C-alpha cells in the first residue's frame, strides 16, 4: 500500500513537472547548485576607525588619547521565488564602553518577505521578523560606512540611543509605486522598539539609575519617500510612535511613562559632482507617571550638508548640525537656571561643524578623514563620559577610517 502511494506521488510529481523539467532533473545536484548560485547572495562590510578628541570621549577613551570604532556585517539573501524571499544580517560593533571591551554581535535583521503584487508600476508586500527602520535618509544602512555621508552619523540619528531607530522586531507593510513623475516608497513598521541604558539615563538625567525601559503598547515607525530620477532628488517624511515604561528597582521612577514621538523631514540632491542634504527633526517628549517631576517638551534638530566630488573617487563633505533638548530653550539657559546651575546649559544643546574627506580607492575599499568642531554636549554618551563634572562645552573630534565592502 505504501509503495503504491509513493508510486502515485512520484507519478503525480513527474506529471506536474513534465512541462518544464523532469523531477529527476530538477533534483539533480547541478540544478540545485545552479539555483543556489543564482538565487542566494552573500555580502558584507567592515570598517575600522581611529578617533582622537579633546574635551569629551567618543566611542571609548578618545580624550587626549585614541579610541576605536569597529563595524563588521555579514549577510545572506535568498530569492526563493518572484514572491518570496528571505534575508539575514549579523552585525558586530565595538564602539566604546556601551559595547564593552570585546564588542557586541547582534542580529541586525532577519525576515521573510512576501510580495503580494509586483509589476512595472507597483510593488506591494509584507515583511515579518526583524526589519530595519526607514528613518530619514541614512538609517536603514547606518552601520555600512560606505552609505553614510560622514564617519559619524548626523545628530538626528540617535547615535547615543541607536536602539530607538535601529530596527523593529515585528512586521512591515510596504507599497512602492513607480511612475513617470517619480517613485514613491511607503513603509510602515509595527512592533517592539529596543531601548538601552543611554536612553534611560537621558530620560531621567540620572547617570546612576538602574533598571530599564520596556516597550509598552504598540510602537510603529513609518516613512513616505519620493524619489525623482532614481534618487537624484529625494524627499521623505518619517514619523514614529514609541512608548516605553520604566521597569526597575528605583521606587521614585515606578510607573514612569515615556512616550516619544519623533518626526523627520528629509531632502537630498545627488548630482554628478555636487550633492546637498538637509533634514529637520522634531521630537515630542512627555515623561510622567512617577514620583519624579513631569517633563513635557519638544526637542529640535536640523542639519545642512554639502558634498563635492573633486575627482570621481574623492569627495569632500561639509555639514552644520545642531540639536536642542528643548526647542523653546535652544541654548539651555532656562532649564539650567531652573536647576540652580546644577545642570550646565551646554548639556542641553549640541552644535557640530563637520569637515570630511572621502577617498574611494577602489569600489571595495574606502578611506576617510574627518574633523568635528563641537559646542555643547547634549549628545555625548554618558557611559563613555561618566564624570559629569568633567564634561567640556567646546571640543574637537579627529577621526580616520578604512572601510571594505563586498
Amino acid at each position, binding site marked *: 500500500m505504501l509503495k503504491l502511494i509513493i508510486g502515485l506521488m512520484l507519478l503525480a510529481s513527474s506529471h506536474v513537472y513534465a512541462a518544464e523539467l523532469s523531477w529527476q532533473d530538477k533534483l539533480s545536484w547541478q540544478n540545485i547548485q545552479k539555483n543556489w548560485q*543564482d*538565487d542566494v*547572495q552573500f*555580502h558584507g*562590510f567592515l570598517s575600522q576607525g581611529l578617533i582622537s578628541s579633546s574635551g569629551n570621549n567618543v566611542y571609548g577613551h578618545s580624550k587626549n588619547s585614541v579610541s576605536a570604532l569597529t563595524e563588521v*556585517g555579514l*549577510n545572506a*539573501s535568498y*530569492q526563493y521565488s*518572484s514572491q518570496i524571499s528571505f*534575508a*539575514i*544580517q549579523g552585525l558586530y560593533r565595538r564602539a566604546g564602553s556601551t559595547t564593552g571591551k570585546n564588542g557586541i554581535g547582534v542580529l541586525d*535583521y532577519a*525576515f521573510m*518577505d512576501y510580495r503580494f503584487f509586483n509589476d*512595472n508600476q507597483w*510593488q506591494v508586500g509584507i*515583511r515579518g521578523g526583524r526589519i*530595519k527602520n526607514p528613518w530619514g535618509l541614512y538609517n*536603514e*544602512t547606518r552601520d*555600512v560606512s*560606505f*552609505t553614510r555621508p560622514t564617519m559619524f552619523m548626523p545628530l538626528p540619528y540617535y547615535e547615543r540611543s541607536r536602539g530607538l531607530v535601529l530596527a523593529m522586531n515585528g512586521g512591515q507593510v510596504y507599497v512602492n509605486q*513607480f511612475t*513617470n513623475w517619480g517613485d514613491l516608497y511607503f513603509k510602515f513598521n509595527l512592533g517592539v522598539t529596543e531601548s538601552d541604558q543611554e536612553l534611560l539615563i537621558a530620560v531621567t538625567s540620572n547617570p546612576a539609575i538602574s533598571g530599564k525601559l520596556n516597550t509598552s503598547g504598540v510602537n510603529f515607525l513609518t516613512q513616505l519617500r519620493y524619489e525623482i*530620477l*532614481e*534618487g*537624484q532628488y529625494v524627499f521623505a517624511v518619517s514619523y514614529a510612535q514609541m512608548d516605553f515604561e520604566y521597569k526597575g528597582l528605583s521606587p521614585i521612577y515606578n510607573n514612569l511613562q515615556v512616550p516619544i514621538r519623533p518626526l523627520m523631514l528629509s531632502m537630498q540632491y*545627488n*548630482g*554628478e559632482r555636487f550633492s546637498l542634504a538637509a533634514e529637520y527633526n522634531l521630537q515630542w517628549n512627555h515623561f510622567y507617571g512617577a514620583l519624579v517631576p513631569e517633563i513635557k517638551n519638544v526637542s529640535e534638530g536640523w542639519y545642512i550638508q554639502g558634498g563635492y566630488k573633486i575627482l*570621481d*573617487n574623492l569627495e569632500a563633505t561639509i555639514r552644520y548640525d545642531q540639536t536642542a533638548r528643548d526647542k523653546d530653550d535652544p541654548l539651555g539657559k532656562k532649564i539650567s537656571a531652573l536647576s540652580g546651575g546644577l545642570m550646565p546649559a551646554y548639556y542641553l544643546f549640541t552644535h557640530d561643524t563637520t569637515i570630511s574627506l572621502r577617498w*574611494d580607492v*577602489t*569600489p571595495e575599499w574606502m578611506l576617510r578623514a574627518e574633523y568635528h568642531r563641537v559646542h555643547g554636549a547634549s549628545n555625548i554618551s554618558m557611559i563613555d563620559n561618566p564624570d559629569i563634572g568633567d564634561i567640556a562645552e567646546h571640543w574637537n573630534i579627529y577621526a580616520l577610517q578604512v572601510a571594505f565592502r563586498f
Partner: protein
Amino acid sequence: MDKTVKLSLYFYGLFLFSSSVFAIEIITHNDSGLSLNFKNEENIRAIFSMRQRYWSNSEKIKVFVLADNHVVHKAFAKEKLAIFPHQLRRSWNRMTYTGTGQSPKTVNSVIEMIQKVKQTPYSIGYVDTLVSDDDIKVMGAR
C-alpha cells in the same frame, strides 16, 4: 575559448584605442521567448537598478555589470540609463544591506561580460564594442 568570442576579442582589440567610436550597446542572451520589449530607458533602468527582477516569461533576470569605476560602466549609466553611476550604487547598497533585494554580478572586463552573457541564459549586460554571436542579442540591432 570558442571562435565567436575570439571574433569579439578581435573587434575589441581593434577598437580599443578608439572606443569612443562605438556607442554603448545593451546585450542579452539570445533566449527564445525572451521579452525584449523595452519601451524606453525607464524599463532598462528598472532592470539595472534591480527593481525589475523577472522577465515577462517569469525567468529571473541575470544582470551583469562592470565595476563602478570602469569607464564603460560610467558611459553606460549616463548614455543608456540617464543617471550617474553613484545612483546605481546607492540603489544596490540599499537593497544589499537591508535584505530587500539583490545586487547585479560584477565582471572584470568587457571580454568577460561578453563571455558571461553568452554562457548565461536570461542574462543582460552591456558592451562598447561590436558583438557578433548567435547566442547574444544586441538590443536595437535589426
